[in-house]
């Protein structure tokens, strides 16, 4: 059996007394899309933050492309190929749209080897952003901010893209555009792990799903053939 691109093994993390993630394990093969579902407080965001180094895990291990990552600072993990599109988008408000993209692109300058992503390619993926390129990061719509957050993550040349609550608070039309773009990114060979509240969309867009409940894995299975009701039962414990 080949080594998966990402292996999370018994990961635990919390805040003081509160254990938000308690021994979570799963694997993601290269090119796969994994949906992480769970209600608020299930530990999804803490799980993502622990994988990409923003939050220190208390035990367990994250292995990415055969390398152990626990204890590696976040700015090194992104260089190894894991990018997070954070919940709430976290656009730099005092930078323009174009500068938000450049901050990420700048860090890749010294990178040797071919680059797959350029600002131009991001603008092709999201034409809306090209039109807003010179506007301030705080002046654009929520949908544009989400496009920008995805584009900014892609410019760090990830092999694995983590997406936290991509569609939260956005209109159906915008969500459709975002998922079309994600489908194109996925078709290009990107490995995705994403959190999405809409169970139906999660199933349709993923190869596997992991359902978290109170920091533990309640359900893990292939998405194909899983029913929405079955997942919802696991979702609410």
């Amino acid at each position, binding site marked *: 059996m080949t080594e998966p691109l990402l292996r999370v093994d018994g990961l635990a993390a919390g805040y003081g007394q509160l254990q938000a993630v308690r021994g979570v394990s799963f694997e993601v093969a290269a090119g796969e899309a994994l949906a992480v579902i769970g209600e608020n407080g299930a530990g999804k965001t803490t799980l993502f933050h622990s994988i*990409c*180094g*923003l939050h220190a895990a208390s035990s367990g291990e994250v292995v990415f492309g055969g390398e152990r990552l626990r204890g590696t*600072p*976040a*700015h090194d993990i*992104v*260089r190894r190929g894991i*990018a*997070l599109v*954070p919940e709430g988008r*976290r656009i*730099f*408000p*005092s*930078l323009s749209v174009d*500068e*938000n993209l*450049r*901050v*990420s692109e*700048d*860090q*890749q*300058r010294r990178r040797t080897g071919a680059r797959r992503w350029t600002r131009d390619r991001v603008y092709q993926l999201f034409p809306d952003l090209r039109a807003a390129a010179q506007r*301030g990061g705080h002046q654009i719509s929520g949908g544009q901010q989400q496009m920008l957050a995805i584009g*900014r*993550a892609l410019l*760090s040349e990830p092999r694995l893209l983590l997406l936290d609550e991509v569609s939260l608070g956005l209109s159906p039309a915008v969500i459709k555009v975002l998922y079309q773009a994600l489908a194109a990114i996925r078709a290009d060979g990107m490995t995705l792990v994403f959190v999405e509240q809409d169970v139906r969309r999660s199933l349709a867009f993923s190869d596997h799903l992991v359902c978290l409940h109170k920091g533990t894995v309640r359900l893990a299975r292939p998405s194909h053939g899983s029913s929405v009701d079955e997942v919802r039962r696991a979702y609410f414990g």
Partner: protein
Amino acid sequence: MTMQLIETLLNGLLLGGLYGLIGLGLSINFGTMRVVYLAHGDLIVLAAYFLVVALVPLGIPALVAAAIVVPVLFAVGWALQRFIVGWSLGRGILPPLIVTFGISMVLQNVLLLFATADARTLQTSLASSGVRLGSITVPTVRIIDFAVGVGCLGLLLAILGRTALGRALRATSDDADTARLMGVDPRRMYAVAAGISAATGAVGGVLLSATRTFYPTTGSEALLVAFEVVVVGGLGSLTGTFLGGILLAMAQLLAALWPGPSYSQVAAHVVVLLVLVFRPQGLLPRTAP
């Protein structure tokens, strides 16, 4: 009377260039790290001493010596941040205040020990020369203060606005965690910001040494000026900081004209008070760079 007023305002504008420059360093540290860097004034005075007590007596021409002082102070600011101040970040507002206050006390006492409490100044031919504009004579050194101050402001705005380093600094200032997700190491950015801040302080120190006499304790005075300049100008806005410097200097010199010289310090504090009451966000609140 009118000529005297114009002369005073012109002198205030020019002196404001030095005040603004002194404020810029504090503004950079506050803008990127949200730290009020209490040792900033002492770094300015350290630069002045380094120039006047260590380099000039060796026979090094003042301009060459100044070109040595600035990069050395960049390194000092960088190292202080990397090895001392950096450890105090992320644990509330008090630890960095205490640590930078401690650095301030150490620097003052080191200067006292090695350079004595004697008054110093940079002896140059500029000190006594002036430029005639119509019937007004302006000290040359003040024109240099202003020109260098504006030059430093322009350089800083260009670095922050147009370079990869500037983008990374601004991103870190906006949201350090998200900057890390882009591959930016905030500790590195903070050290570079502290280095740039100390380098602007060094430029200020060189000008200060040519403009007036100074003592090991002048750093506290310079810090007060810097702090008031930043509060008046608007926290985190470099252009605002610079304008704040001009406003404070004009207020000081106008008050020295009327009601009299002993009111000049009070006038600056009154301006700060008025700004805090009527425009607490400062002249130019934080926007883009």
